[in-house]
């Protein structure tokens, strides 16, 4: 069989997937680009060409910049905490203790819980009058009086991050745990003989095995956190005073609440561009990490 035929055959096998992807991703993407240069409305008006007007308005407005920094803050802090907690939990789960198998099995639960259910659950927990958090903290004597967790900008963001971390750190932990289990036993034994400190053992023996998988988890989680919509929609809808309004919420508002499909599309493309740049930067890091781990 000639290699040309093999390649052609491979393309033919790819064809159904490619066709669907072009229909549901390629075409809409191209259409979003076109819309972004128009003043189209969601319902009714097809819109006129307005050049770069939408982009200029968005980039010069204060809404976009504030929302961008809110999104970046959410993404960086929640993913950072998830990574650290995830690795710590994985190190723990890699030790010997009673009930280890059960605890490992439980770790999958928060991850399996649907995002919307998670958001709903935490919204109830944070309820200022009847929520479990206020009740637990005051009954333990840690809090003098009930607080409005989702009503203050600072604590609302912290509350969102906590809810997001609780759901996602177990996933990081499971990935890290699998990587830990791939560290050869004799390597650890050798480092023990050498008398390396626990910290050095982690830094020089274990971390190289963790780096690759963790980088992948980091990339995926960061991209997801940057696109965050569901949890915020349910818990705060962007409030109080827009302090938790992320880019996806802003696009929804522009395109679907205000019905401005054109500038909504421009905004969506700006977000896409940023996520792409982020992913490319990470991609370079992953390759570097993979290179150093091998």
């Amino acid at each position, binding site marked *: 069989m000639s290699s040309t035929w093999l*390649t052609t*055959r*491979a393309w033919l*096998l*790819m064809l159904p*997937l*490619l066709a*669907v*992807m072009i229909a549901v*991703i390629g*075409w*809409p993407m191209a*259409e*979003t680009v076109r*819309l972004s240069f128009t003043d189209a409305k*969601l319902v009714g008006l097809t819109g006129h060409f307005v050049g770069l007007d939408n982009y200029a308005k968005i980039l010069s407005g204060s809404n976009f910049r504030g929302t961008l920094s809110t999104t970046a803050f959410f993404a960086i802090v929640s993913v950072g905490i998830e990574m650290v907690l995830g690795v710590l939990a994985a190190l*723990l789960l890699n030790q*010997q*203790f009673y*009930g*280890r198998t059960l*605890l490992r*099995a*439980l770790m*999958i*639960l*928060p991850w*399996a*819980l*649907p*995002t*919307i*259910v998670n958001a*709903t*659950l935490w919204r*109830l*927990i944070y309820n200022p009058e*009847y929520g*479990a958090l206020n*009740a637990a903290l005051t*009954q333990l004597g840690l809090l003098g009086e009930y607080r409005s967790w989702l009503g203050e900008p600072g604590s609302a963001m912290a509350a969102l991050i906590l809810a997001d971390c609780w759901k996602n750190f177990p996933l990081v932990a*499971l*990935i890290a745990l*699998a990587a830990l289990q791939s560290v050869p036993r004799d390597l650890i034994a050798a480092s*023990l003989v050498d008398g390396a400190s626990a910290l050095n053992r982690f830094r020089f023996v274990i971390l190289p095995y963790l780096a*690759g*998988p963790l980088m*992948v*988890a980091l990339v995926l989680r960061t991209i997801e956190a940057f696109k965050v*919509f*569901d949890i915020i*929609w349910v818990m705060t809808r962007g409030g109080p005073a827009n302090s938790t309004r992320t880019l*996806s919420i802003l696009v929804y508002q522009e395109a*679907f609440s205000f019905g401005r499909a054109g500038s*909504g*599309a421009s905004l*969506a493309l700006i977000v*896409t561009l940023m*996520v792409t740049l982020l992913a490319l930067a990470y991609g370079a890091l*992953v390759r570097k990490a993979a290179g150093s781990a091998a």
Partner: protein
Amino acid sequence: MERQSLARKIALHAAALLLAAVILAPLVWLFVMSISPPADLAAKPLRWWPEAVDFSRYRLLLSTVENSAGAAFLAALRNSLLVAGTATIAAVLLAIPAGWAVSRTPSIGWSLGLIIGTYMLPPVALAVPLYMALAHFGLLNNVFSLALVYLTILAPFTTWLMKSGFDTIPRDIEAAAMMDGAGLFATLRIVTLPLAMPVVATSALFAFLLAWDEFFYALLFTADQRAKTLTVAIADLAGGRVSDYGLIATAGVLAALPPVLVGLFMQRALISGLTNGGVKG
């Protein structure tokens, strides 16, 4: 194995207990809310366990009386099953040939890279044209068109998993079958696919969980009981207009059951899927 000192053992078990508490406490509370009478949930100080266990909300949500809150919830459940099921089957069917092709013909691997790259597109970037197109063809508020849209999320993922799976199956086995005169499709069906069944199962599980979890497209593209999925139904309940927190919690428990059971019982498959992809990049 190193010998553990007593202090270390105690510290380890304490840490494990803490981790277990962190994981379980919110989940247990979700369940407790679902069986607590409304008065207990509005009590100050809060009651942590109901005086009398109350399962009435489960009966309410699972009732089939026409035009009731239960019928609406069950319709959402049915829609979620239909959408997730259809999307999963389609995503796996698309992924098998494509994953195999990329695995066996590395020279076209870049196309898969491109497809996986679409993962970083935020749904908001595709939503406006998809909405307009579905509206144009009269396909809004339809479970099957929603399933088609879900392929934007599921198909790249399943293809990537299938490709990693096929990578672990030696080509020699296929070559041997071909030598015996079997055609490509026969070889795939008789030799390769049976070996790849665990990966197919893993891909299907992931696809199902992803589809079950989806909210944004469902929020935009569905309107009523004909297509509205569970996630949207629950967000509607949680929107601050339902005063019985226990009812919201009950809907949450019911919606969480399928994925949580899948997670518990299919754990090995899920983790191998995650780490396979993860370790190999």
